């Protein structure tokens, strides 16, 4: 696997090296935690960030698979439209925001405002999420295996929010529903695909109470 050492390099250099290196073969990038916006807007390929990643890792991802072997900072996979972003450790504030599609997996914990304005992506957090996760979600799935903080799924419009643990408080326009057989099969498939140790039967599902909850 080709490796790019990002030490002392700026975003423009590393992303252009990445563009050259991605020829059907996975590319590894190390020492990249100082770069914000790494692996932006790629339409394919596989990129492994060895160690920690900075903010906006995989932003505008449009088909690439981006893996981070340790922790990622804020705004993981921001505005992704397709592809997969997998964080082996924790993700900070705002992972999986504004995504139209693709999959975000955070194996550890994720911060506040995770999956805010999700518009169609699958966002799976294997640990806990902070406050305001799933705010103003319009489509897609947010799956939290652990616990959630305050105001969970606030202003939910559409899409599904699943949680294995508990929340501190639920946001507005939410209602708790039992999981259908379809939901369970879907979660089971996700858990198998991404090798997540969880039992769909113990999950709770949150959906929007109304599709039009606003007073202008």
């Amino acid at each position, binding site marked *: 696997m080709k490796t790019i050492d990002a030490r002392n390099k700026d975003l423009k250099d590393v992303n252009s090296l990445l563009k050259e290196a991605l020829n059907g073969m996975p590319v590894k990038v190390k020492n990249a935690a100082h770069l914000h916006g790494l692996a932006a*807007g790629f339409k394919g390929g596989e990129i492994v960030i060895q160690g920690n990643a900075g*903010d906006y890792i995989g932003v505008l991802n449009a088909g690439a698979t981006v893996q981070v072997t340790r922790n990622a900072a804020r705004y993981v996979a921001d505005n992704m439209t397709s592809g997969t972003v997998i964080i082996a450790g924790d993700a900070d504030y705002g992972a999986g925001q*504004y995504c139209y599609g693709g999959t975000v997996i955070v194996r550890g914990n994720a911060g506040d405002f995770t999956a805010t*304005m999700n518009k169609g992506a699958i966002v799976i957090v294997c640990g806990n999420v902070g406050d305001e996760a799933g*705010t103003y979600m319009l489509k897609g799935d947010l799956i939290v295996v652990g616990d959630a903080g305050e105001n969970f799924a606030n202003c939910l419009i559409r899409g599904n929010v699943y949680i294995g643990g508990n929340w501190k408080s639920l946001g507005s326009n939410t209602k708790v529903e039992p999981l259908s057989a379809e939901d369970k099969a879907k979660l089971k498939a996700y858990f198998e695909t991404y090798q997540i140790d969880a039992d769909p039967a113990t999950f709770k599902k949150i959906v929007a109470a109304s599709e039009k909850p606003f007073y*202008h």
Partner: protein
Amino acid sequence: MAVIGAFCVSVNKEVCLNARMPGKCATCAEVCPHGVYALDSHTGEVAVQNFNTCVGCRICAEFCPTNAIRINPAEPEYITRYPWTFSTIEEIHYKAQTGEYLLRGFGTHGQTPHFDMITVVPSQIASMAPLDKYREECDMEVVIGEDTCKKPVVLKVPFVWAAMSFGALSKEAKMALAIGAAEAGIATNTGEGGLVPEEAWLARGFIDKAQEHKKWQPGGYLIIQWSTGRWGVSVDYLNTGDAVEVKIGQGAKPGMGGHLLGAKVTQDVSRVRGVPVGSDALSPCRYYDVQTLDDMKHMVAFLRDVTDYKVPILFKLGPSRPYADVAACIEAGADAISIDGLVGGTGCSPDIVTQGVGIPTVACLPPAVQALKDYGVHRKVKLIALGGMRNGLDAFKAMAMGADAAGFGSAAEVAMGCRVCYACQKGNCPYGITSQKPEMRARLDPIETGHRLGNFIRACAEEVKILTMLSGHKSIQELSPEDLRAMDLNTAALTGLKLAGYERPLPIWDVPGGDGRGNGKNGKPHPEV
């Protein structure tokens, strides 16, 4: 209260019940608290006995069973009844009845400080001689991103269309703006509602996607807006245009995100925005994915990266703290900054926000220009003035105050046929501009309307040219505040322009050790912003 004799009372005898059947109705006489009407107990006839006592409360008109009464102020009501004007009373009634605040489209109305109390200083014998508009050239070009991008935007004349979204506007209106931009060699803007595919080739003057036949010369540009709702945004969307604009705010409702009411969220709009058909699409007021100015710098960095460092990055600001906000945009790496003033328009906004929030455009420009000067980037990072621009005269004044170009939003809608009914949010625009209904949209021919828009820009460009040349300049880049005078104290105080007659800025703009134009030793404007 000086309301005596202030109103004219008229009763339409055609529909008045009493006029047709005396004795049958005397409601007006019964309800009027001031004895305006009198009932003749013998004949049963009601007549206006003393209109001089009318205070314009319109209780009679409200009670009249046949809606026969009209009360018109003899003097402007704003003088005779202020602050309890008819519209204020009606607004309170509306709120009391519905529990809802007022929403409306378009922009601010009423008196706010604007360009009208500024006059243009022509050349005579003591200054540079005027140039001849009819026989001499004038450089009107504006280049955005000249030193920073592989593909700068070259506006043939100093105008852009302000950002207006698909959703707020119909697809046909968006197409017309693109065609108008192509005809005039200026830029149109997607707004925040995603891309109408046709915009991409129409803006550049091409009739179809293949971009082989250029129908509209010289061809213009498409600015792609990146906003807080991120509707329809992907890496392909960003690469469709010739520039990316980061929207921070807008003049009509700074501090709030876009409002698109459910009535306008049709199947097409729903597909682009990802919100359910018929539900309100309310953009967040801030970027969820930006918490600090450093984040904004990183956002600009990745936007440049995904667009391959080709296109300029613009910022759009609402009117708040122009000096500090413009400085922040410069720090973030902007190639151009649009600053929208109080009078800026919108497809929908709470009435009180449109009317009561934000700084007038004329007062935004001096601090904005000062920030650019303090960073040494004035005329390099381009400043685009928005907010209530109506013609070449407004644009000229903004440019002489230091802007590089001006944007038309509301005026563009009017050029498309709008008559300003303030109801854009309802989606029933009879001209098909702000409606998503097929029967309304069918009334707007994008090519014909695009030509009207092109014409409007051509005429405004000629106006700018006239004013530039009569004040002795051969290029819009030579314009300066010396080309203007404020005609009243307020405008001189707000802008720091020289007061006509007094021939210097007001002393409040003087700072010890400053340059006499209101700039202190530290180069910052005074009072401190």
